[in-house]
């Protein structure tokens, strides 16, 4: 226990205490004298952004899951060796690229006159003079998926690689299509890994400030931008903390699943 104390004390002082402090700050009495004043103000001003945030993060999580399964599935079941090799080399590039860099990439890539529109114009698919950029909710989703899908794919592909291949070969010999093998045989076995990857992605995206700030900081925007705005413009910690507690609530279900899984794994170790 003595070996653990310094690390535990660090987590306690720098995470658990400030987290409890944010909850206490959210319920502190406002000028109206009731404990829910900050929540009232947060909901009044930012209920639209709450829905916006939840939709963006849930939608991105679903897209990340679908892409990760597709990538990992093709790496495991693909019939074209050169395409499998190319995919394995390609998909990991965004893995450790920081969000702030991804945001800068997308800010110029997805702009009205960015490379994406210019390329589509050159190919002849759109006319760039009449096209619009994607720097709104779509840009945020694209940046999130671009950055997080490789991470989820890496974890899921790792889990698939450690599975027993005899079952896959048996199903193949019986004539099952690759889609069925992916859905009926691989997915149930890698589900815990996929869930962990998606929960971590969900929580991460709920906390990223740079991407919404740099891609679409105007209204409607994400709760992280609103919290930073309350602090930097008004020094309004009450409303910011209320928004923080609401974002804890959004992740509560995901957090519960993750903690239960983590503690069970750790105890079995």
């Amino acid at each position, binding site marked *: 226990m003595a070996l653990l104390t310094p690390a535990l004390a660090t987590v306690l002082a720098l995470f658990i205490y400030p987290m409890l402090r944010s909850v206490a700050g959210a319920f502190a009495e406002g000028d109206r004298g009731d404990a829910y004043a900050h929540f009232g103000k947060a909901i009044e001003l930012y209920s639209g952004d709450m829905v916006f945030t939840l939709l963006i993060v849930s939608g991105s999580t679903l897209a990340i899951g679908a892409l990760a399964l597709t990538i990992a599935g093709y790496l495991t079941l693909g019939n074209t060796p050169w395409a499998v090799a190319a995919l394995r080399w390609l998909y990991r590039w965004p893995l450790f690229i920081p969000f702030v860099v991804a945001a800068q990439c997308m800010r*110029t890539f997805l702009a009205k006159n960015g490379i994406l529109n210019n390329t589509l114009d050159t190919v002849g698919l759109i006319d760039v003079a009449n096209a619009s950029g994607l720097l709104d909710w779509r840009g945020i989703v694209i940046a999130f998926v671009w950055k997080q899908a490789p991470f989820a794919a890496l974890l899921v592909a790792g889990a698939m690689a450690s599975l027993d291949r005899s079952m896959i070969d048996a199903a193949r010999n019986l004539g099952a299509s690759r889609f069925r093998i992916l859905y009926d045989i691989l997915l149930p076995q890698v589900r815990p890994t996929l869930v962990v990857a998606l929960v971590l992605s969900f929580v991460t995206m709920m906390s990223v400030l740079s991407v919404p700030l740099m891609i679409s900081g105007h209204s409607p925007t994400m709760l992280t931008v609103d919290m930073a705005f309350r602090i930097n413009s008004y020094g309004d910690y009450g409303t910011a903390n209320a928004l923080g507690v609401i974002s*804890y609530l959004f992740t509560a279900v995901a957090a519960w699943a993750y903690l239960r899984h983590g503690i069970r794994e750790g105890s079995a170790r």
Partner: protein
Amino acid sequence: MNALSGSRGLARLPRTLGVALAVGALAFAIFGPLSNLLLWSFAEQWYFPQKLPGQWGFKWWERVFRPTGDAMESLWTSVTIALVTVGTCLALAIPAGYALARRPMRWRALVMLAFLLPQAFPNLPVYINVAQVFYSLGLNGTMAGVVLVHTLHGLVLAVWITSAAFGAVDRDLELAARNLGASPLRVFMTVSLPLAAPGVLASAIFVFLESLDEFTGSFFVGAPDLTTLPLLLFNASAGGNYQIASITALILLVPSVLFMLVVERFLRADVLARVGT
């Protein structure tokens, strides 16, 4: 025989083309946004509706890498913070990881809960409160303050990676050394630690990278007194200077891509799959 395989190859052609097209589209989706940074970093003039910069040059690179430039100062700030963070994190994570892997303990679930919590909830509202506390302690805008925030950020992963590394060390070797009369500390220093070194090194690199890339915590605790590279990138981009922003982004890209290329040499997929689970 030849004719047969020839016609089969021909029948496969549309499929092969389809696969090639999909791989090409993926390559564009990944390298398109990245190539953008390169174009912007060399663009001296780029006006709508030009598809490529009208004038190219090294003007901005020269400005960024001037020894007195903001970027060099930010680079040193970031690297110093990252190195101190690695030291602090390892000093905390090596004993903790060893204890989690080896020692039987009561309250194990509660200990694990504490180490898992920072990954399970969004940390931006936490950073806001850390910044408020640090402000009253005079730690806001100081290196020490930012190092503390980055240490927490890296600690969770560092504990898991080192714990997995110590867990993989053969226990009989430690017992044999004990039987030959070595003290527990000596066993740890001469047997367990060297054998777990690759995992410890991996977690050091990981923490370094996390610290170098960290934005949100530095934004609340460090700015505006301390400008790390991600904050410099953000400020340049917010100010509309896409050249400086792109060059800073490219500097941050180098360690990320290097780590991506070698990550599997340090961490096997099965260890990687256990990280953060």
